[in-house]
C-alpha cells in the first residue's frame, strides 16, 4: 500500500485551478466545478464527467461493485497510424487511470439495485472496441441474470477504428442482449451524455426503454462536420443536441445533472421488472450460450478462438453466471 500523508488531498497544479467554460467563456474555479457536479455556475453548461465522478453522482454511497475489471484490450489488427494502437491505449490508461473506456458493475440508486455501465470520454474518446462492447454486453446480461434494471450512461465518439470491423460488430454484440431483456421483462434505461455519436448511438444507446439525456449534449449519428462536409447542406438550428432529439421523438427526457439521480430513482420506482418474466430457476434450467460458445470455438479452431477471447474467458471466469437462452414461443 502506498504511503500517504493522512490529511492531504491530491491537488492539481496551479495551472489546473481554473477552467474556462466553453459556453459562456467565464473562468470557473475547479473546486467550485467539482462541488457543482461539473455544471457551470454561471450558464449551466454541463462539463463532461469521468466514470468515477459519474458513479459518485448517481449511485448510493459505497454501493458500486465493479465487475470484469480485468478485461483488457489487445491489438488484433496490429494497427498503426502515426502511433501504434498499443501506445495510444497505454497513454489513455496513464491519462485516465482506467483500464478501458467503460466500466460496469452492480450498484444501488436510492436503494434500487441496478446493473450499470458507464463510459469515460477521456479514454480514446470513449470509443467502443472489443472490451467496451464486451462490458456493455455483460452489463446487460448481468441485469438479466439478477433480474434488475439495466442502465448504461454513454459518452462516446463511436466505434473504435483501431479495431476495424471487430469494433463494428460490437454494435451487434451490445444490441443482442436487449432482445433477451425484452423477453425476460427487464427494463433498460439509456442515459446519453455529451457526446454520444456514431456506433454507440447506432446500437444499444438508441434502444433504451426510456432514454434520458443531459441538456445540450451532442447526440447524433454522424459527426456534425461529416454531415455538413459530405452533404454540403445547411445544418438546422440546434442540430444533434439532446433537445433536438427529444423534439424529434428519439429521447424521452432531457434532465439537468442536478436532477439526474432523482429522475433515475423515479424511473426505477415506476418501471418494475416484470413479474411474469422468467424466474431464476427457469433460467438455470435453460441451456446458456456459453456451452454453445465453447462449441463454436472448437469449430472455429485455435487461431481464431484465441483472438476472440473465448479461451481466456473460460479460463478465468468459467463460473460466471450466464444469461439464459430461451426459445420464443409467444410470437
Amino acid at each position, binding site marked *: 500500500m502506498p504511503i*500517504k500523508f*493522512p490529511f492531504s488531498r491530491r491537488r492539481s497544479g496551479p495551472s489546473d485551478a481554473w477552467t474556462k467554460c466553453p459556453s459562456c467563456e467565464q473562468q470557473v474555479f475547479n473546486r467550485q466545478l467539482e462541488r457543482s457536479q461539473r455544471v457551470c455556475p454561471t450558464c449551466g453548461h454541463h462539463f463532461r464527467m*469521468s*466514470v*468515477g465522478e459519474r458513479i*459518485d453522482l448517481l449511485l448510493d*454511497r459505497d454501493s458500486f461493485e*465493479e465487475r470484469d*475489471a*480485468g478485461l*483488457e484490450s*489487445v*491489438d*488484433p*489488427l*496490429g*494497427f*498503426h*497510424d*502515426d502511433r501504434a494502437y498499443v501506445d495510444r491505449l497505454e497513454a*489513455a490508461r*496513464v*491519462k485516465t487511470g482506467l483500464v478501458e473506456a467503460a466500466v460496469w458493475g452492480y450498484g444501488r440508486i436510492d436503494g434500487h439495485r441496478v446493473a450499470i455501465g458507464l463510459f469515460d*470520454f477521456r479514454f480514446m*474518446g470513449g*470509443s467502443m472496441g*472489443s472490451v467496451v462492447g464486451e462490458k456493455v454486453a455483460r452489463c446487460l446480461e448481468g441485469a438479466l441474470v439478477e433480474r434488475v434494471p439495466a442502465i448504461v450512461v454513454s459518452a462516446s*465518439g*463511436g*466505434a473504435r*477504428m483501431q479495431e*476495424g470491423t*471487430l469494433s*463494428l*460488430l*460490437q*454494435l451487434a454484440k451490445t444490441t*443482442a442482449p436487449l432482445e433477451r431483456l425484452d423477453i425476460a421483462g427487464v427494463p433498460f434505461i439509456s442515459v446519453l451524455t455529451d457526446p454520444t455519436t*456514431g*456506433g454507440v448511438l*447506432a*446500437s444499444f444507446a438508441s434502444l433504451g426503454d426510456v432514454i434520458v439525456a443531459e441538456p445540450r449534449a451532442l447526440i447524433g*449519428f*454522424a459527426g456534425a462536420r461529416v454531415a455538413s462536409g*459530405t*452533404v454540403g447542406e*445547411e445544418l*438546422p438550428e440546434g*442540430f444533434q443536441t439532446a433537445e433536438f432529439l427529444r423534439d424529434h421523438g*428519439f429521447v424521452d427526457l432531457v434532465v439537468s445533472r442536478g436532477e439526474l439521480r432523482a429522475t433515475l430513482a423515479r424511473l426505477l420506482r415506476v418501471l418494475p421488472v416484470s413479474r411474469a418474466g422468467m424466474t431464476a430457476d427457469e433460467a438455470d434450467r435453460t441451456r446458456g*450460450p456459453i456451452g*454453445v*460458445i465453447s462449441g*463454436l470455438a472448437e469449430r472455429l479452431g485455435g487461431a*481464431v478462438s484465441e483472438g476472440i477471447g473465448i479461451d481466456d474467458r473460460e479460463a*478465468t471466469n468459467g463460473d460466471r453466471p450466464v444469461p439464459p*437462452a430461451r*426459445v*420464443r414461443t409467444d*410470437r
Partner: protein
Amino acid sequence: MMTLDETLGSVAERVAMAPPTDAEAAAAWSRVQLARHPQRPRTLDLVTRMFSEFTELAGDRLFRDDPALVGGPALLDGRPVMVIGHQKGNDTDSNIARNFGSAHPEGFRKAQRLMRLADKLGMPIVTFLDTAGAYPGPAAEERGQAEAIASSIKLMTGLRVPIVVCIIGEGGSGGALAIGVGDVVIALENAVYSVISPEGCAAILWRSPDEAKVAAAAMRMTAADQVTLGIVDEIVDEPGEGAHTDHDATARALKRAVVAALARAAREEPGELLVTRYARIRSIGAYRETAVDAARHRTEQNLRDRIGRILHLPGIGRRRWSDVWRGAGDDDGEAEGGA
C-alpha cells in the same frame, strides 16, 4: 504491455505493429477500387440472376419508399425467401436516384418491415451488402438514422428464420451492419467490410483523406482479412479480373454458396438457431481477461477516509470513485474518437 502472440495470430505475423507498407496499401486499395467498380454487379443485378419471381415491395409504411435499399420475396430454386439489399446505381442518373446506395432511416425501416414479414411466414432471409454507409445528412438525423440502424440490428438478432448475409461490394459501417447480422456471412472475393470508410478513417487518424490507401490497409478491410477476424465465414471467388467482368458467372457462384448456406442453416431448429446466432454475435471481439484485482479499490482508501468513516464525519469516509481512477491528465480524447 503486450506481446505479439497476444495479438491475432496470422494477421500479427504479417505486421509487427508498423504502419502499412506502400505495397500493402496498394494491394488493399486495389480491392477497394474493385469493390467500388462502376460496372460491378449491384444487388438487383445479382438478385434477378439468382432468384426467380423477385417481387420488389416498397415503403416503410411510416414515411416514404427509400430507393437506396430494395427488397421483397422471391424464389430460390423454387423456395420462397426474403431478399433485402442496398442498391447502388450503375451510372450518374441512377446513382442520384439511388442516393449512391446510402439509405435513409426509412430504408432500414423498410428492411425491418420485410424481415418481420419473413419471420411471420417462416421464410429465410438473404441480404446483400453494398453501401458506403448510411446517409449522414440532416434529414436522416432528424428521422433517427441511429435508431433505425440500431433497431434493425436488434430485430435481426431475434428473428427465428435463417439469415444469410452476402457482402457483394462495399460493406460500409453501421449502414451495412443494419442488414448484416446473420447466421452465415459470405463475401465476394473483392468485397470489403469496414467500420468507417478509408477516407473517413484517414481524415480522423491521419488528418488527411489522402492517406485513404494506408488506412484501407491498416483497417484490414479485405474479404480475406475478414475471414481471419472471424467475421466472414466464406469467400466466393470472382470470375476473371473481378465480378464486373461477368455478372452471370458471379451470380452463379454466389447462388451456389447461398443455397449451401441455407441448407446448413435449415437443419437447425429455430430455437437452436437463435442460440447459435447469439453465441456467434457474442463471441466476436479480441480481448484479454486477467484475474480481477477486486481488492485493489478497497485498499486505496487512505487513513483520513478510514478515520472519517469510523467517526461518521460528514463528507468524509465515502469512497470517491473519482479518486480511485485518477489519471495523470485531463485533456479530451477527441482526436482519437470513434466512428
